[in-house]
């Protein structure tokens, strides 16, 4: 017997008029997984999440949530999920307690269960002492926590989190990340969209990178970094700015690109050991005094830029050529 996937997207497509926002994407999310969904602005992240949660109807393709089709079996599919959108959509005129009770009723949870669960969640999210206060006076971080608590009142099996830590202070970010990890350890499947690549790298079991409506890659963060070997680099800084150094490094046979980053230079290379030797030779010949010399492994941000930025650059150039 095949195991039911938490989320199963098949040829999921969305057109807005003639504009193709999401282009026949396919992916699975396993139960108990934290699945990251990354992409630049306008890549199709929000449209995908809206289709997966039943807010928007797919133009083509299907999505199954714990085996229930989001279009044909919408009510059952929606019963097993909780959603935290990028903007905390809570009723600020109601108290934290009333918000949770209302959401519980909307999901058909019994009165006794709502009260038990609301108390547990508000205590977990350190909001219990302020449960009878109207949400309008809460900070952004507190509103975010109320929003996450509302998404969990129905014992959801899948939690969609759209930019959960965006715009929050460091303390709230840590607290929310900790809560997500705790909930995941208890078996909750998490579908996380974020702009914060470091967050995705730290939290997700697997990541999908979407660009211009298409999935560019799906893999574990480490595998994505490893696959982007060409993004390894050496960072070097000198005690003073020496004219022409950038040009010198650019001429090295093993260096594909030199990026100036503040007082440092980052040399992109396929072969860090050969580049290191070549750099040392340049230093010696030019009597330079290095104060920093670091070998950097590929990171997810580089992979992300490589998968999305390069393609976008090519697209812009193609458009410019066509305009001419």
């Amino acid at each position, binding site marked *: 017997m095949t195991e039911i996937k938490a989320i199963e997207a098949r040829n999921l497509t969305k057109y*807005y008029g003639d504009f193709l926002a999401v282009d026949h994407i396919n992916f699975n999310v396993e139960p108990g997984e934290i699945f990251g969904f990354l992409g630049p602005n306008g890549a199709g992240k929000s449209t995908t999440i*809206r289709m997966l*949660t*039943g*807010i*928007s*109807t797919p133009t083509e393709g299907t999505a199954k949530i714990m085996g229930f089709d989001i279009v044909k079996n*919408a*009510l*059952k599919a*929606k*019963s*097993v*999920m909780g*959603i935290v*959108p990028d*903007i905390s*959509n*809570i*009723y*600020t*005129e*109601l108290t934290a307690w*009333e918000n949770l009770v*209302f*959401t519980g*009723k*909307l*999901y*058909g949870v019994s009165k006794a269960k709502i009260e038990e669960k609301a108390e547990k969640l508000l205590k977990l999210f350190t909001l219990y002492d302020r449960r009878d206060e109207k949400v309008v006076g809460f900070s952004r971080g507190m509103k975010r926590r109320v929003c996450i608590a509302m998404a969990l009142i129905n014992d959801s099996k899948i939690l969609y989190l759209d930019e959960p830590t965006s715009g929050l202070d460091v303390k709230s970010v840590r607290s929310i990340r900790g809560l997500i990890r705790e909930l995941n350890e208890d078996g909750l499947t998490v579908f996380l969209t974020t702009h914060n690549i470091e967050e995705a790298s730290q939290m997700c079991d697997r990541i999908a990178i979407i660009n211009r409506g298409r999935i560019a890659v799906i893999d574990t963060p480490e595998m994505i970094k490893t696959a982007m070997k060409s993004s390894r680099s050496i960072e070097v800084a000198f005690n003073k700015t020496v004219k022409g150094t950038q040009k010198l490094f650019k001429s090295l046979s093993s260096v594909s690109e030199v990026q100036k980053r503040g007082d440092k230079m980052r040399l992109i290379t396929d072969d860090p050991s050969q580049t290191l030797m070549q750099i040392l030779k340049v230093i010696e010949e030019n009597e330079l005094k290095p104060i920093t010399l670091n070998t950097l492994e590929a990171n997810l941000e580089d992979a992300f830029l490589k998968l999305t930025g390069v393609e976008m650059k090519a697209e812009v150039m193609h458009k410019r050529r066509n305009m001419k």
Partner: protein
Amino acid sequence: MIKVTLLDELKRSWAITVKDMKIYYLRPHALMFGILFPVALFFTFSAGRNMPPEGLIPILAAQTVFWSASSIGPVSISMERRILTFERFLSAPISIISVLWGKMMAGFLFGVGITTLAAGIGLLWSGQSISNPLALFFGVVLSAMVYSAMGILFASIPTSSPGEVTVPLNLVRIPLMFVSGMFFPLDSMSGVGVYAALLSPLTHTLDLLKLGTGGSSFFGFTVNLCVLSVWMIVFLYLGQLFHKIIMKRE
């Protein structure tokens, strides 16, 4: 196995009604169009016309139920679009029809409550008695359903500003008052005017309220009930249809 029954849907729908009652009944838009507007219109066009109380009370009640019941849906739906709480309903295990039904009930109860209060004060003040309780009941209750459904239909306009819903709604509400026998008696109207009056739901609200407070119905009790029922079905059907179309586009 997860199963959502009709009773479950009704319970969830009622949760929306109660929540809307808590949040939107005291909103400026609801107070202005639900209470101030009908009272102001009543005093502007009806009071001081030397009309007997049996003529004034139905006009006051008809205007109140017409304006108040149709005011909550446009305010609540457009505001919920603005703060994105409407998306909560779309991603919750509840059908769009039940969501709209919950919203409609909030408008309906607002309309019934305000009209009962206004008509009650009017009847006490004038010392007039209720001659046909059934007509009065349908004149308030069925009408509140019709106008609340009308508000929901206009709230399908995809906007996050209540003003952008109430302006087109007023473009319908205000002309309706002039073809419904409220300011010009139906028996003084020409053929076209009478046909327009027959089609207007407000005519039948006024007819039923007149019948309930000792007056007579121009089109008759049965026609009044049938026309109001048809409008309720039409508004409800179109309302959910338009909301579904908007959902598909989003």
